[in-house]
């Protein structure tokens, strides 16, 4: 109803819009911050060397010395989950950065200029989009070889189209707003209009899709490492650990449990944040 956003514009922007009062966003942030601390502790003060093999500790259960227990090589699971979270996070982060950066450029150019550039770039986009991102990443891996950086690059490229679409849609909307004409009349260059005048208006939409993209990247990394083409042994990654743990599921359920929980928490945290941002 028109009247609502008419009178209360001021109040909405001051009170309702503020993320501070958004429970989803707060809960999500808490989980994410917790996982960050967990990860950082692992980097600075990991209780054990995550790759150190101790044959006397094979399949040791949870104890004071090994909080999460030990795996089939006697490696400390807590240290490995910490290290693995970092590895997963690194891949997801890199993926999102590549995807967002190029997605913004492609989306902004196609959305703002339209015409031939739009046709060409979006058709390329469509053809990338037509493949499931994991399948596409697999294709890149087979060309580039397995490994952390290759996976990041492959997933990053696979993520470009979805970001490009979101940014393009926002630019199509913004392009026809009068404030863009006003900026033109001021004498702003196209570059300036695109990146300084319009782009900040896509932040809310972009931010929540970055969060969702991050989740997809976490899942994709985990699945690829699970398949054995992501992070290479003996380095841990959450997906790798799950894959290694599945044989011992009955014998040592804690082996699979903790990396699983770490994945769940990462995804839950970012989903809640995305939901919180998207709601405004």
């Amino acid at each position, binding site marked *: *109803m*028109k*009247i609502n956003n*008419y*009178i*209360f514009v001021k*109040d*909405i922007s001051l*009170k*309702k819009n503020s993320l501070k*009062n958004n429970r989803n966003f707060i809960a999500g942030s808490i989980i994410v911050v917790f996982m960050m601390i967990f990860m950082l502790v692992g980097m600075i003060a990991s209780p054990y060397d995550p790759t150190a093999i101790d044959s006397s500790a094979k399949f040791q259960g949870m104890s004071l010395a090994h909080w999460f227990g030990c795996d089939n090589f006697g490696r400390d699971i807590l240290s490995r989950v910490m290290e693995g979270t970092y590895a997963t996070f690194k891949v997801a982060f890199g993926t999102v950065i590549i995807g967002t950066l190029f997605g913004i450029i492609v989306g902004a150019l196609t959305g703002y200029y339209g015409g031939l550039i739009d046709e060409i770039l979006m058709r390329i986009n469509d053809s990338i989009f037509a493949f499931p991102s994991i399948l596409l990443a697999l294709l890149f891996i087979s060309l580039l070889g397995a490994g952390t950086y290759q996976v990041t690059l492959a997933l990053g490229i696979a993520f470009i189209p979805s970001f490009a679409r979101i940014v393009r849609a926002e630019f199509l909307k913004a392009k026809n707003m009068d404030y863009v004409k006003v900026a033109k009349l001021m004498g702003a260059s196209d570059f300036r209009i695109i990146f300084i005048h319009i782009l900040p208006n896509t932040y809310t939409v972009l931010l929540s899709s970055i969060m969702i993209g991050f989740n997809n990247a976490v899942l994709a990394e985990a699945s690829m490492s699970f398949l054995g083409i992501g992070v290479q042994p003996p380095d841990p990654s959450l997906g790798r650990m799950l894959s290694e743990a599945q044989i011992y599921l009955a014998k040592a359920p804690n082996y699979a449990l903790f990396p699983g929980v770490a994945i769940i928490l990462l995804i839950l945290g970012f989903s809640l944040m995305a939901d919180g941002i998207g709601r405004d």
Partner: protein
Amino acid sequence: MEDKKLILKVTDLNIEFHDHLIPETVVFDFDLDLYEGEIVGLVGESGSGKSMSAMAIAGLLDRKHMNKRGSIDYDGIDLLNCKRDKLRTIQGNDIGIIFQEPLTSLNPVYRIYDQVEEPLRIHTSLTKEERYEKVLKALKDVELDDPELVMKQYPHELSGGMRQRVMIATAMIMEPKILIADEPTTALDVTIQAQIVKVLKKLNKEHGTAIIFISHDLSLVEKLCERVLVMKSGYIVESGLTKDIFNNPKEEYTKKLISAIPRIDFD
């Protein structure tokens, strides 16, 4: 007015919002007696609470985040506090409403005929032919030039003024006792505004529909309404017969509204 029947009585309506940290009252002690077949103007600037009051009467206020006091008595039913299904039958049958923006109030994917016909399908058991006749008559009533053609068109094919006529036809098809017109002409050109006002006047005369006409423009109210309520920051500051208020405004605010009307004086 003595001989006319009272059809709607609003007493002590207060509306308070709760969806922000600080509750905010937007309508204070709103009273309105609406008699059969009259046209009442509700005037004020944006933020004065005029649309809120009208939405309450139409039963369109969101039930969450909101505190309402008072009563809206229609035919013995309190529209403010009655059950949802009861409200729904009244909404379709007895109270019609038209909004400011005719483009967003029509569904872009349906043809005009389907949209005007929709209330008949929901509320009546008329046959297809009877419904067609009614729709045709309704579109003729709002003085659309070629109703047979308009029926087959989509909203985006019509001009703003035509869309607003279609909206009026949709609102009038159940022959409601009350029509609420919420700034129906604000988005339109002056010439079209005049035509819409004429159509509303005609419908009022022919069908005896009482109209609550909401506007920020006193010049339109002057043309259309017998009675007017002036609202400011949630309060009714002045009310009475339109000609009295125009000739002898008591409140400073009313004077300001009247003086704001652009006029053409040749001197």
